[in-house]
C-alpha cells in the first residue's frame, strides 16, 4: 500500500539501524514525545534493536493519559445527568477518574456516544434538540482545530444544547516542564509529527536555544522514526543543537496557518493540571469568553468535582518523564493490566505501559 509499505520496509530499516549503531560513540537518551511514536517503536521492535545505542524515553504525548482526574470525573457526572449525552473519542472512554470511567458509567445508565469527528457531536445535538450534548474535547494541537470547527458549527446553527469540556493540552509547555525537572536525562527530542503538522516547527527554535537540546520533527512509521533517531544521534555526536524536520511529507516550517487561526479564534491558553505532572503553565486551551456559552465547565458549573483524587499507585508521570521504564513500575503486569488498569498509560492505545504490555516480549515474563 502506497505511503505505508515503503515506510515499513525491513531492509531499509536494517540499514538505518546499522547506521545509527555505527555512528553512536556512546549511548544517547532521546524522548519520543508522542504516544503514536511510542507504539511504533515498541511494536516494530525498534527500541529492542537499539538497546545500548539509544535509550528511548516515552514522553507525555498521550493526551488521554494526561487528562486530569477532575475533568474525567466531570464528564462521568455529565453522562449521568438526565437528558444529557457525552460524546468523545474512543480512547477517552476507558480511562477512570477518581471513580468510574465513562464506559463503566454507561453500564450504570450513563449516556455516551463515541464519535470520530467533533462535528458529529454537533450533528447529534442538532438532531436531538431535547438532549444536551457535551463533547469531551481531548487531544493536543492536532485535534484542537477540529473541535474549534465544531464550536463554529454549533455557533452558526445557534445551538443551545451543545457544549464542550475543553481538555486540550499543548505540547511545548510539557517539553519545557520535562527539561526543567532536576533529574531530567533527555538529550534530544523526537517532536510529534502530527502536532507539528498544525504548529510547524519554528516554534521550537526558542526552546532549542534555551535548553540546548536538538529537536527533530519525526513521523510514526518505522523508517520515519529511524530517520528521526539517526538525525538526532548525528546532531548529538556533532554537538549540533538545532531544529530539523524529518517528516517533510506532513510538516511545513510554519505549519497549517488556517488550523492555527481556528485555534486562536476559539481558544486561549491557560495553566492546566496534567495528570501526574501537576500544573503546567500554558499547558492547556480554554474557550475564549465569546464562546463561553459552549463551555460545559461554565454551563454545568455546579457539577464540577471539588476533590478528585487519582489512584496514587500509578506511576504514569514517572514513566512519561523517563524516571522509570514501564516494566520497572511494581504494578506493571501484576495489579495493573489493560483489563484492570491503575492509570491511563495502561489504558490508552497510545499509553507507554499499554504498548509494553502488548508488544514487549520481556513483559510476558512479568505477566
Amino acid at each position, binding site marked *: *500500500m502506497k505511503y*505505508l509499505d515503503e515506510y*515499513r520496509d*525491513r531492509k531499509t*530499516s*536494517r540499514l538505518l*539501524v546499522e547506521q545509527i549503531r555505527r555512528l553512536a560513540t556512546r549511548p544517547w537518551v532521546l524522548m519520543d514525545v*508522542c504516544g*503514536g511514536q511510542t507504539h511504533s517503536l515498541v*511494536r*516494530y*521492535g*525498534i527500541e*529492542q*534493536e537499539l538497546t545500548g545505542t539509544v535509550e528511548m524515553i516515552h514522553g507525555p504525548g498521550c*493526551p*488521554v493519559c494526561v487528562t486530569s482526574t477532575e475533568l474525567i470525573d466531570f464528564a462521568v457526572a455529565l453522562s449521568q445527568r438526565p437528558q444529557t449525552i457525552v460524546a468523545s*473519542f*474512543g*480512547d*477517552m*472512554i*476507558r480511562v477512570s477518574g477518581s471513580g468510574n470511567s465513562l*464506559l463503566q458509567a454507561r453500564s450504570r445508565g450513563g449516556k455516551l456516544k*463515541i464519535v*470520530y469527528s467533533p462535528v458529529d457531536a454537533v450533528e447529534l445535538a442538532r438532531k436531538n434538540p431535547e438532549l444536551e450534548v457535551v463533547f469531551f474535547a*481531548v*487531544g*493536543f494541537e*492536532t*485535534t484542537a482545530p477540529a473541535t474549534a470547527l465544531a464550536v463554529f458549527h454549533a455557533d452558526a446553527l445557534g445551538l443551545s444544547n451543545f457544549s464542550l469540556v475543553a481538555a486540550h493540552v499543548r505540547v511545548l509547555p510539557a517539553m519545557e516542564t520535562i527539561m526543567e525537572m532536576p533529574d531530567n536525562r533527555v538529550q534530544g527530542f523526537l517532536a510529534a509529527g*502530527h502536532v507539528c503538522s498544525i504548529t510547524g516547527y519554528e516554534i521550537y527554535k526558542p526552546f532549542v536555544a534555551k535548553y540546548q537540546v536538538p529537536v527533530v520533527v519525526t513521523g510514526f512509521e*518505522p523508517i520515519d522514526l529511524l530517520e528521526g533517531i539517526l538525525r538526532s544521534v548525528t546532531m548529538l555526536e556533532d554537538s549540533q543543537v538545532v531544529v530539523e524536520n524529518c517528516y517533510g511529507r506532513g510538516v511545513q516550517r510554519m505549519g497549517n496557518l488556517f488550523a492555527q487561526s481556528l485555534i486562536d479564534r476559539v481558544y486561549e491558553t491557560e495553566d492546566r493540571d496534567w495528570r501526574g505532572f501537576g500544573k503546567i503553565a500554558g499547558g492547556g486551551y480554554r474557550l475564549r469568553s465569546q464562546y463561553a456559552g459552549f463551555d460545559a465547565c461554565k454551563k454545568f458549573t455546579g457539577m464540577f468535582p471539588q476533590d478528585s483524587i487519582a489512584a496514587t499507585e500509578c506511576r504514569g508521570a514517572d514513566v512519561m518523564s523517563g524516571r522509570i521504564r514501564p516494566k520497572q513500575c511494581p504494578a506493571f503486569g501484576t495489579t495493573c493490566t*489493560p*483489563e484492570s488498569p491503575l492509570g491511563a498509560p495502561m489504558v490508552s*492505545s*497510545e499509553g507507554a505501559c499499554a504498548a509494553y*504490555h*502488548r*508488544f*514487549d*516480549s520481556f*513483559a*510476558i*515474563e512479568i505477566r
Partner: protein
Amino acid sequence: MKTSMTPAMNCPASVSQSDTVMLAHGEGGRLMRRLILERIAWRFGAGDVQFHSDAACLGKLAGDVALTTDSYVVSPLFFPGGDIGTLAVHGTVNDLAMSGARPLFLTLSLILEEGLPLAMLDQVIESVAATAKACGVKIVAGDTKVVPHGAADGMFINTTGVGVYEFHQRMSAANIHPGDSLIISGPIARHGLAVLAARESIALSPSPRSDSAPLHRVAAELLETLGADLRTMRDATRGGVAAVLHEWAEESGHAMWVDGNCLPILPESRGVCELLGLDPLFVANEGTFVAAVAPHHVNQALAILQSHLTIGCPASIGCVRHRELSPVLISRGLGADQPLDEPPVAMLPRIC
C-alpha cells in the same frame, strides 16, 4: 397479557393493518398466528419435516449428531455484504462445519422489538430463507417473541443447528503439533469493518463488505482430502484471528507463530484499519477461517481453498511452535518475534 383491554388488542383487523411489529403480535392469538404463517413459516419449505407442531421430527440421522446454538444481535441489522438473516444462517452453519459436521437443520427463534417495521422483518426472513436454501439446510422449528420498545435493538435471532459427522476425525486443538502450518482461508477483517462503518456511518469508498459466507462445502473437501492431516479449523469471528490463535495456544499448550507480512488483507480493509488504528488480527470475520494442517499438505489445502472461495487470497500465515514464554507470537517490522496480545476489550479508534 392476553386479558389486556386495550382496543387495539381487541380488534385484530386494525392491528393487522399496522406496518410495524406490535406487542399484540407476540400475544399468542390470531395476530401472532397470522404473523408466523403469513410472514415467516411459508418461506421455509421444510419438505418431509413436520412443521406445525411443537417439535420437529428429524427422523433418523446417518452418523453421530452435532448440535450447536448461537444468538445474533448485530447492529445495524443490514450492512454491506449481508444482514442479520445471512449471519444467523452462516454463523450456525459454520459452527457445525468447523467442527467437522455436515449441517442439516436449523431452528429460528426471533425476538422482535415492538415498532420494528414489518417490511424489515420480511426482508430478514427472506434473507434467512434464501441463505438456508443456498446452504442446503432446512429451517425446521422456530419461535417468535415480541418485547416492548427499548427492550431489544430491532430484532435478535437465535439459531440452533443440527448436523452429522460424516468423517471420522474430530476437529480439536489437541490434534495440533509443533511444526504444523497455519492457514487462513481469505482476506481478514472484512466483516468487522463493514459493520463498524455501517454502524458509525463512516463514509468510505469503496466501503468494506462483510465476508459472511457458508464454509461447510470447503470444510468437507478439506476433511475428505487431508484426513487426519487437517488438525483443526475455526472460523475467526469475534476477536478475529488473534482470538482463534489464543484459544488454540491455550488448548494445545503450544505456541502459535504468525508472519505479519503474510496476512492476506484487502487494500481497503487495510486502509480503514490504518486510519482508525485497528489491528486487523483483532477484527471479526464471518466467512473466513483458520486451519492447522500438517506441513506437507499446505499447498493442497491452499489449492482447495482457492477453488472454493470466490475472493481468493488464501495464505499460509505461520506455524505451530514449542511454547516458550508467549502463547502467540508475531514477526513484523524489524523481524523480531513479539507477543500478540489477546483481543482488546473493545475495538476503539485512536485519537491522534
